């Protein structure tokens, strides 16, 4: 089969447009019923999870910031502790 024959087949198929009138009849009524059904369905968990995504993201950021603060404080206290020991050792002759 060459390109011309294939193009001829396409041309012929184009002229035969399927009759959709039977399927179209009363379509709006059935569609609105389907939409009402979809609207009344409970929200799926996946959708809820996606909607809550900003909340989860905020929790992660707050937890991260809090964790970073705590670690910084602990590090500062540890540094301070070492400094104190050195100061005591200097004052009292370091036993």
């Amino acid at each position: 089969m060459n390109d011309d024959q294939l193009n001829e087949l396409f041309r012929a198929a184009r002229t035969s447009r399927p009759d959709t009138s039977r399927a179209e009849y009363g379509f709006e009524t059935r569609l609105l019923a389907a939409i009402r059904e979809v609207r009344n369905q409970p929200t799926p968990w996946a959708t809820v999870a996606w909607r809550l995504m900003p909340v989860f993201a905020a929790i992660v950021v707050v937890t991260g910031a809090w964790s970073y603060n705590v670690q910084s404080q602990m590090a500062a206290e540890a540094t301070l502790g070492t400094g104190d020991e050195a100061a005591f050792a200097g004052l009292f002759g370091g036993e």
Partner: protein
Amino acid sequence: MSAQIDEPTDQRLIQSTLAGDDEAFATLVARHKRKIFGIAARFARNDAELQDICQEIFVKAYLKLKSFRGEAPFEHWLSRIAVRSCYDFLRATRHDRENVPLDGIELGTQPSGNAEHARELLQWAMNRISDDQRLVITLLELEERSVRETAELTGWSESNVKVRAFRARQALKRILETSHER
């Protein structure tokens, strides 16, 4: 005074639908259903499938209506949903379609002599090419869309559409030749 009553625009109907007026959406559907049924009919095998596909298209459109920004005409936006839904349908029913026999479709006759026969023969052959190739050929050759329109509807690049179309034509020629030899 003119008795002519202006029909509401698509934009007005969309706003009314978003405000909770289902009848406005029904009017919108009635206005555009012929085109959508025309697209879907190229992929469905019977009325039941056609109704299922079209229902899915319009339910999706209803659920996504908030995201319609009016940058392009509503019909274009709806056509994109239709094409994607048809593609999903092709993928979901691929296995069933491949097993359809060639019974009742005569080969070797002049396709131009019988448009219905040409359509059936082409549909049989298109069941044997990949889903993306079928989608591209349907839009380009049967719906007579341009490469640019096809690219917009499918979300593929224009060069990608051209490559797929070329491969689809090669595959169709091969399939039709093989079936003709049998």
